[in-house]
């Protein structure tokens, strides 16, 4: 397949974002990738090596999505490198895993700014670059709709993200830009998420998951590929991908 497509993936240097990046390079004709990250240089360089070995040009963008000025600077750099984008995936999140009633104002702001608000500014930056149409995808989690212990701040951020997906999907439809989301259950990547009492949480999650296993970054990447390349009539959907956990 000709690799003529271009994608921006925030949080694309690790975990789920990296798996989506690989899937897009292998199966969606992506030949130029813009990967945003904030501090983990080693992971960023490893991701670049992995993806460039598959024949893709990777631009690493070290910008902190907590700050609007850094997001603007990131788009200045992207605009200097391309005049067109096909895909934007938002896989960035950060929080403090603790009960919501104990979350402090600075922790709330960081969680919401990085995990939700930045999606809006990035989507706004992508719209002019998607002048020939494009697809956006936000990675949410089941904590947006189900109680998960210690997940309150991120749960609210994810609900916000999902709501933005719906609004943007309607508003951008006329520009031939589709916006969807994936609502992922617990994912076992290289590491498990840093929840308190993680062993118990995994045990309880497995007990309630009909698929009897946790998800993997590759599971999310396959659904992302479908949403970004096949789901032509799907608009503003936040697709639950959780091995059946939310049903039980």
């Amino acid at each position, binding site marked *: 397949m000709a690799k003529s497509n271009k994608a921006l993936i925030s949080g694309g240097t690790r975990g789920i974002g990296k798996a989506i990046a690989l899937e897009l390079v292998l199966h969606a004709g992506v030949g130029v990738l813009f990967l945003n990250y904030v*501090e983990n*240089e080693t992971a960023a360089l490893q991701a670049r090596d992995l993806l460039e070995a598959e024949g893709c040009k990777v631009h690493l963008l070290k910008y902190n999505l*907590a*700050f609007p000025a850094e997001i603007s600077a990131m788009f200045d750099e992207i605009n200097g490198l391309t005049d067109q984008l096909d895909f934007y995936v938002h896989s960035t999140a950060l*929080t*403090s895993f*603790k009960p919501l009633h104990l979350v402090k104002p*600075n*922790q709330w702001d*960081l969680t919401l700014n990085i995990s939700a608000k930045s999606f809006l500014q990035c989507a706004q930056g992508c719209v002019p670059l998607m002048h020939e149409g494009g697809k956006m995808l936000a990675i949410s989690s089941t904590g947006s709709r189900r109680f998960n212990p210690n997940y309150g701040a991120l749960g609210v951020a994810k609900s916000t993200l999902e709501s933005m997906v719906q609004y943007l999907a309607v508003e951008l439809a006329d520009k031939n830009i589709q916006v969807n989301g994936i609502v992922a259950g617990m994912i076992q990547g290289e590491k498990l998420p840093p929840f308190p009492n993680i062993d118990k949480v995994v045990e309880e999650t497995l007990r309630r998951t009909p698929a009897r296993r946790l998800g993997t970054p590759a599971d999310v990447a396959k659904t992302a590929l479908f949403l970004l390349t096949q789901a032509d009539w799907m608009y503003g959907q936040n697709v639950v991908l959780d091995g059946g956990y939310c049903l039980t």
Partner: protein
Amino acid sequence: MNNTEQTERQLITIVAKSLQIPEITVKLDSSLMNDLGAESIDILDIKFAIEQQFGFKFDNEEIRIMLKKAAEEFNLSEKDIPALFTVRRLYDYILLKQANG
């Protein structure tokens, strides 16, 4: 106020604002986690605010080596590292970055 005093004041303001504590309680030798109650997300918040204020990016590897060296110097183990992560370490790191331009 000279430059280093100004840096100290700015740093104390950042730490106090992030942790929502009075500036007077923040001393250079306070341990961020053990004395001031910072959680790991607060340490990130403080790092991000320092980066914005002083215009450089933290190099995590430099910080890791700095704390490891300090642990060796005081004959402490890895688990004592939070105690070593004092406001002064951030202050020294800022001065180092400023000196290196």
